[in-house]
């Protein structure tokens, strides 16, 4: 079956090159903010927004940015959009902002943004880059939400703050803390890699 370029971009973003489990990119934030579903959604939305802004701007300016200083130019573009995300969160959702505050700033060093900029946006037009950004953002968001659903359900007995488990449920405190994040993400990586029969030596290319 022959795929059109845009369909390929969509499928890559959602499954084949899906950022977290298959490329192992952007792990820091996915581990740290996935203890509650609302944090995961906020983080996913923030990353998607920054990704879209970066994609459009870099794709539009790709012929003007000199190759030697492109890294720092990307950094400045990314940082600008992250400031916007940070301000919006602070103004509209102060509680979430308090919970994930410093991690929002770290979207700048989230390798998904830098990675996609270097791999895709420099060499593709605005339209295709926008599509790539949207679906990479969605791919990132849905994995983050999946991880956080498990962690919040077992760690707090709730989903989005609503009581789901019976009150007598013994909370798995460890799930809300750092080790739980490692175990759940490791499980997801195991499942997706086994399903996708991926080359075991393939690792995240970037930092």
């Amino acid at each position, binding site marked *: 079956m022959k795929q059109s370029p845009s369909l390929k971009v969509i499928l890559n973003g959602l499954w084949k090159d899906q950022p977290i489990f298959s490329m192992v990119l952007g792990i*820091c934030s996915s581990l*740290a903010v996935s203890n509650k579903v609302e944090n995961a959604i906020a983080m996913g939305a923030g990353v998607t927004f920054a990704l879209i802004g970066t994609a459009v701007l870099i794709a539009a300016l790709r012929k003007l940015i000199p190759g030697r200083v492109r890294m720092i130019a990307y*950094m400045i573009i990314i940082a600008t959009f992250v400031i916007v995300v940070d301000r919006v969160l602070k103004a509209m959702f102060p509680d979430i902002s308090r919970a994930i505050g410093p991690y929002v700033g770290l979207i700048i*060093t989230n390798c998904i943004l830098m990675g996609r900029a270097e791999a895709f946006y420099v060499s593709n037009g605005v339209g295709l880059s926008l599509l790539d950004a949207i679906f990479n953002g969605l791919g990132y968001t849905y994995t983050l939400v999946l991880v956080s659903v498990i962690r919040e359900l077992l760690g707090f007995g709730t989903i989005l703050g609503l009581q789901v488990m019976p009150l007598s449920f013994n909370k798995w405190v460890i799930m809300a803390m750092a080790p739980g994040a490692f175990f759940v993400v490791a499980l997801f990586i*195991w499942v997706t890699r086994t399903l996708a029969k991926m080359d075991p030596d393939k690792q995240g290319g*970037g930092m």
Partner: protein
Amino acid sequence: MSALNLLMIFIATLLTSNIALSYLLGMCPFIALSKRLSTATGMGYAVIFVVTLTAAINWPIYHLVLVPLKAELVYYVVFIITIAAVVQLLEMLMEKFFPALQSSFGIFLPLITVNCIVLAVSLFMILRDYNFITSVVYAFGSAAGWTLAIAIMAAINEKLALVGDVPRGMKGPGIVMVSAGIIALAFMGFSGMVVVQ
């Protein structure tokens, strides 16, 4: 801030609130570079150096330039430029004056720009309102804690490679995460020893 407080912060960043194992930062290199102990420690030393230096530079920039100018809003951009510039400068200086040092950890330097703990340490020190000395101790301790974590991880990975009986889909990042989870559990045993933040 007394010397005792500084020591407490140092121990806390090293053990109880380890930046890799309890704040989950710097994970990408943690997973990608923890195959061999020598690579891991090489990266670790470079990180300690850069993190401490950038924190010491970013603190005066924030408090002496950005705050008086009421331009705190742009500190993300300013910090990231400082970090990139420091790394670039270090690389050039090392190439010129310390070629031996350059060959031992120079290859890790460009990778550090995108290591999130460099930026994270600078952001946390502003967020927690540390003074200059505390910030430097905090930065040094955090980076040393990260190095400790990645060194433990790499040593485990080296042993694991000898046994090598890991399920196919679990190889690589999967097993690293499980091991990291177990190390994080062990490090939780330190909690309650000192309380900082």
